[in-house]
């Protein structure tokens, strides 16, 4: 019995990740075919191989699950779209960091960071001479930006995370207004990122990961608001690639807040049970 091979489990077609996968794949096709995006098939294959291979190996031998690594596939596409490098190896590196974080950087049974965000942030921090994120790669097309926003909004809606996107966008926009007035900068120069496709991808695809966002509506609103606020703060200090660092920090803070909330709830329960004044 111990040697009996379990069949490979393939997620059903209702799994929301298939939809995300379909959309991301269309972006990957664009990235590989658009001269402006400058991605090569070898770069995608490197990220894909590492994501699928590593994710499958860890699922099979670490978690003892024989599951089709759909999440790994999603991550591989995120790696290709986010990571910007003339080389091939950074794509493999970011892919590996992303998958490893998913399996090992965990709290309360779920991963803490959006895998792609973790990979790209570490890539930027430690390999900034070889890894970058160039939002301008998406070109200047307003139609392209709208398409990404529309597909992203639908995806976030299906994943019940649209509130994260809206609150982040609203919080970011409020910060834009404050920065524009406070720092006396032309409004459009500060709000410029919101008009680009990269912002839409981040807003609707990246920060709406169900595993790394709060499950309660209030929590998600707080998450999006905090993310937008921190993004603005980092931009005031001209931290390169501010949104990614902001998401990293907010995701890192979530487990701490959860455990603090749990401790408070437990204290409330104990006091109530003992009928002691709170």
């Amino acid at each position, binding site marked *: 019995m111990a040697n009996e091979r379990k069949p490979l489990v393939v997620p059903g077609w209702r799994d929301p990740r298939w939809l995300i996968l379909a959309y991301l794949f269309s972006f990957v096709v664009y990235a590989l075919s658009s001269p402006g995006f400058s991605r090569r098939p070898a770069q995608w294959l490197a990220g894909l191989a590492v994501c699928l291979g590593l994710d499958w190996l860890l699922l099979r031998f670490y978690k003892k699950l024989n599951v089709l690594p759909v999440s790994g596939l999603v991550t591989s596409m995120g790696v290709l779209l986010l990571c910007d490098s003339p080389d091939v190896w950074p794509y493999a590196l970011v892919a590996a960091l992303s998958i490893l974080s998913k399996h090992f950087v965990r709290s309360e049974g779920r991963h803490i960071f959006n895998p792609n965000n973790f990979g790209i942030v570490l890539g930027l921090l430690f390999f900034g001479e070889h890894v970058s994120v160039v939002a301008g790669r998406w070109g200047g097309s307003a139609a392209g930006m709208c398409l990404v926003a529309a597909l992203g909004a639908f995806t976030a809606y299906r994943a019940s995370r649209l509130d994260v996107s809206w609150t982040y966008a609203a919080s970011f926009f409020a910060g834009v207004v404050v920065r524009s007035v406070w720092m006396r*900068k032309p409004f459009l120069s500060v709000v410029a990122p919101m008009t680009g496709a990269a912002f839409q991808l981040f807003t609707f695809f990246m920060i709406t990961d169900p595993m790394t966002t709060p499950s309660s509506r209030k929590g998600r609103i707080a998450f999006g608001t905090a993310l937008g606020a921190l993004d603005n703060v980092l931009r005031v200090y001209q931290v390169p690639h501010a949104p990614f660092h902001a998401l990293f920090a907010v995701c890192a803070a979530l487990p701490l807040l959860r455990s603090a909330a749990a401790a408070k709830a437990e204290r409330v329960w104990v006091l109530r049970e003992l009928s002691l004044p709170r």
Partner: protein
Amino acid sequence: MGLIVATLVFGFGYARNHRRPAPRSATQDAVAALPDKPATTPPAPASPKPAPRVKKDNDLGFDLVESARAVGIVHPHLLFKPHPSIKNVAPWLTSAGASAAVVDFDDDGRPDVYLTNMEVGSKNRLFRNNGNGTFSEVGDGSGITDVNKDRVSLRAVFFDYDNDGKKDMLLTTSQCSSLYRNVGGKFVDVTKKAGVDHCGLAFAVAAVDYDNDGFLDLIIADYFKPVDFHKPATFKFMQNSLVAADNGGPIAVYHNNRDGTFSRVPGSLGITSPGWTMALGAYDFRGTGRPDLYLATDYNSDRLYFNEGGGKFVDASSTIADKYSKNGMSAEIADVDNDGNPAVYVTNIYEPMYKLGENMLWKWSPKERKLVNVARERRVSQCGWSWGAKFLDLDDDGRQDLVVSNGFISANPNKNYWFAMSTIGSSTGAVLEDTRNWPTMGDASMSGYQKKCLFLNRGARFEDVTDKTGMKDDVSDGRALAAIDYDDSGSLSLLEATQGQPARFYRNERRNANHWIGFKLVGTRSNKDALGAEVEVRLKGRALRRQQQPLNGFMSQSDERLHFGLGKDAVLESVSILWPSGRRQTLPALALDRYHVIQEPSADGK
């Protein structure tokens, strides 16, 4: 536990990034090392005197010694002030335009120097080579220096358009271009008469005889679409994308009518471009005897056009194997391996964290019929925000070395515009192209105070030897690079035009015993300048090749004489010249260590 690890990792990474050499101290050192501070008013020219000979203890067999003042080339490059409505991007708009030309304008056999200026009312400068290791400014009355009254100068191209043996000049400016005819050391404006009606802001110009009719034609590629920075009619003239901009200026082709006039060619021979052309490189890549064209393009992919003859060019851009870098600046082309297959060096922008566009060395592969990037394996891929590049044999060992100038805006070292640029760069095209949306640059730096790159050709790879030479302290905003053998010593010196700063002259202090040979080519059936001619020097066991293309690179024109370093024990067997007319001329062994004037045989073979 995982969270703690992640936080620690992030903390270490952040600390690592912020532990990098502090830009403040490095920059302050660099500023202190500048020979001249950026000037707003020209200093009094130093009295020319022979440059002191300084011996340096490096193991390269040569050194480059900054000697601009010593040789009498004093030229502070001055910048114009754009209209107040676009002053938020003024440093950007005035960040390119310094050009340098080496030309024997008075036909005395010695290379002279012409440098442009960019302040309204300022003068360009013409320096005559005195023949004793110094130059004298002789611009007054020449007709080509007091030319910035209501515009500013950009690219100067000297070429003999009427085949009278004297170098004429095309000058592109912030407004309309001008053509000056050389009437014996003086220049006369013949723009209207010659029919050169080009108006537009162009850095890229090629003088090529594209149809091999013996007269040089003109190709002018504009960067911006037409715009007057002193009185802009629109604010929407910036690039509408960082990687696929299509709103730059057009390309104009002027065919030489062989009667002193030009005609603009409708459709520009099929040469199209989205604009933003930085440099035009001309070279016969395939041995057809016809010049092909490489267009180094900003904010888009570079273009390559093959000349199919009969005035027909075909788009061969698909032969450029990789298109990661999107900021082509320079198109310097040479047969660096002496194997008959040229390589194009295209400079780009490399700024860690923001832009990883490395410089490209596109080697022509005749088998694949592709340009394959070998910059990494040759170790010439990174040199900051690079501009001009020049292949030249500095140590006369027979291999062409490579010098790259760099640095975008060196202003306040404590302010950096890169973050603001990346912010506006992430927007849609409609936002990006409008100057009103750009954050104020003020006195911020952007990829400033960068050390230049001198790559010595070691055969299979290049070695960066900058720190062993006098270029090591150069952190100016370098632009054009031009090679010049100003004292006929067979050692190529280097002229560097800088943006808003004094021009530099690097005298080559060669100390080895390597031989050399040089040629001044004079066309008869071909164009008089012999542009496009190829010379092969056959030595015992090897052959060296050079094409006569002094206008390649970025905003520069080099010494037109073809220079060949030959090494220590050179035994010259023959010299073969393929003229643009198609005639091949073979010469017996010639004397070494001197220049030879070679005239193309006429139709009857004389």
